[in-house]
């Protein structure tokens, strides 16, 4: 299994590099270190959110409320900052993490204790959290002039050529990579999604694992709420509308199975970067940004097709395999060529 995963990440890395190389033939300077750092920085928020989404996906759930959580938390910290400029930034960031984790915990509680399917619970909170952002702000915007300099400029401060926003993403990637692969919680995530029954026998509390996955996703969304508001220097109700789909897309492209239990941190990061490279390349090669949405849609579909090919290598019931044999045959030549 790990060989397949490595293969997937390598493939994604190569695709990313080929894309960058191809774009830089059209626009010299696209592959310059400065431009690459810029792309990474621009994709940082998506990377962080995708890692949260990955934790939830691993447990066979999905979190559609990440963008709404981001909007509410972003609005909350921005309003706090404008009303009480004396509150220090670390406290604001802690507040963002806390509010986000709280909203995530609400999702997790509904999935764990009430037993509502994750897609329905987060579909509901998706509209509720964004609505709450409206209630909180009364529909008003928090503008650049109302926020303090420290609040706005800290994530933009360059360190070794990369703004702190990018370093935050690197820090989150490192922490998540350790948590997912080196801690009991991380292994529980994979176990709970890979085979819930076996996980139960092995002493993993599947429901509680899901709860903490949602809380993690919420906390990272909250953090991104602050990062988003400071990056774009404005907070309003509709920020990041529809961004939850981008996080799912990044994960799916990165080879994280929506059926749970499969996926790696590297995959999620590379999947997010893939979307980031395309997003940044479109204006450079003079394609209208209106193409972005259709391209990510197409990429998601192709990625799901590739993922399904991977899943099929596992043992399957004979009848279902027979029913799908035609589609397997379609996929086989490609598989042979790649092997």
């Amino acid at each position, binding site marked *: 299994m790990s060989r397949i995963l490595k293969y997937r990440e390598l493939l994604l890395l190569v695709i990313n590099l080929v894309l960058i190389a191809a774009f830089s033939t059209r626009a010299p300077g696209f592959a310059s270190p400065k431009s690459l750092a810029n792309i990474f920085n621009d994709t940082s928020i998506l990377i962080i959110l995708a890692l949260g989404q990955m934790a939830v996906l691993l447990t066979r759930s*999905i979190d559609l409320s990440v963008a709404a959580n981001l909007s509410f938390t972003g609005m909350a910290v921005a309003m706090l900052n404008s009303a009480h400029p004396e509150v220090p930034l670390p406290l604001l960031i802690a507040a963002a993490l806390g509010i986000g984790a709280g909203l995530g915990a609400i999702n997790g509680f*509904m999935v764990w204790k*009430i*037993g*509502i*399917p994750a*897609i*329905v*619970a987060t*579909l*509901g*909170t*998706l*509209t*509720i959290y*964004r*609505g*709450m952002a*409206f*209630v909180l702000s009364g*529909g008003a915007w928090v503008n650049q002039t109302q926020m303090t300099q420290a609040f706005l400029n800290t994530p933009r401060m360059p360190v070794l050529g990369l703004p702190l926003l990018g370093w935050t993403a690197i820090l989150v990637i490192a922490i998540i990579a350790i948590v997912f692969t080196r801690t009991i919680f991380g292994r529980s995530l994979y176990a709970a999604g890979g085979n819930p029954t076996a996980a*139960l*026998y092995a*002493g993993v*509390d599947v*429901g*509680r694992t899901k709860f903490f996955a949602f809380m993690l996703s919420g906390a990272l969304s909250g953090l991104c709420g602050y990062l988003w508001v400071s990056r774009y220097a404005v907070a309003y*109700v509709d920020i990041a509308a529809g961004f939850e*789909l981008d996080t*799912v*897309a990044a994960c*799916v492209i990165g080879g994280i199975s*929506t*059926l749970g239990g499969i996926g790696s941190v590297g995959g999620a990061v590379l999947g997010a970067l893939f979307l980031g490279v395309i997003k940044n390349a479109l204006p450079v090669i003079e394609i*209208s940004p*209106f*193409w*972005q*949405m*259709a*391209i*990510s*849609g*197409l990429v*998601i*579909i192709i990625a*799901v*097709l590739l993922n*399904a090919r991977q899943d099929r290598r596992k043992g399957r*019931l004979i*009848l*279902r395999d027979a*029913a*799908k044999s*035609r*589609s397997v045959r*379609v996929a086989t030549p490609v598989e042979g060529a790649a092997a």
Partner: protein
Amino acid sequence: MSTLAAEKRPPRHIPDKLSTPAGRLLGSWETLLAAVAIAIFTANSLASPHFLDPWNLSDATYNFTEKAMIAFAMTLLIISGEIDLSVAAIIALASTAMGAAAQAGFQTPALVGIGLSVGLLCGAFNGLLVARFGLPSIVVTIGTMSLFRGIAQIVLGDQAYGGYPSSFAWFGQGYMSDFPWWPTIPGFEVVTFEMVAFVVFALLFGILLHRTTFGRWIYAIGNNAFAAQFSGIPVQRTKFILFLLTGLMSGVAAVCLTSRLGSTRHTIAVGWELEAITMAVLGGVSILGGSGSIPGVVLAAIVMGLVTFGLGLLNVPGIIMSIFIGLLLIVVIALPIVVRRIRSRTPA
């Protein structure tokens, strides 16, 4: 948490006799919904003096008729264990195609044909990916949602299509009293084309789901797709047809909505997939598949229409309404689960 889920289940309770049909009807989800609908209707008419005006009520139906048409098809799809998140994006694409055709000078019948065909094609694409390649429908339709609306966005950019022929406006704005054969009974003049379409589609989907073999197949697939396949049910073909139907109904909704608005932007019908799913789930359809009914969804559509219209009369902004819809969705799903758990704890 050392005990297994199976061990925690209480011993099966077998009643001495089955409840009577009347008793079953009284205790059903549909009855509860009907009671809620009546309560909201009463509350609305008390809260606003304008609520009971027939023309007002006629306008209120636009809140749910188009969404309900999608919800009917979505109901069948959810019962079969699949879901389609791309319905609103199909509306956007179908509406864009109709807009482009209208610019090119096509007339109303051609526009309707184009709208419906685009819906069918999109549904076929979803169905192909899910049924033929065996991909999970949530992810596939998240992808096609981006793809379909993305194509609409490429075509339209930040522009809008308008200039539909005047006869095209009838589908979304017309009244049945435009026909000479429509009965001239007082009160009947407020009946719109969309209301009649809503009733006709409710009947058609009700018959399809509850009175045909195909309908039984849908339940069988949703409850146990393996067992269904062993029973000789063409599982994949049935799912493909359901995606086709959902695409077609999205096309129908696109015709009605485009005709009502008279213009097309790429943001048309944003968020409708959530409302259609909420409608189905509120109507008692299990999101895990296998159970649900069309009468329930009809009542849910009316409840949602009444709630949004009533709140609108009270000048509640749309985003606050969406909080209500979101809460409604969660409460409606949580309530039966919580009630069942409390019941199983206290032995009867």
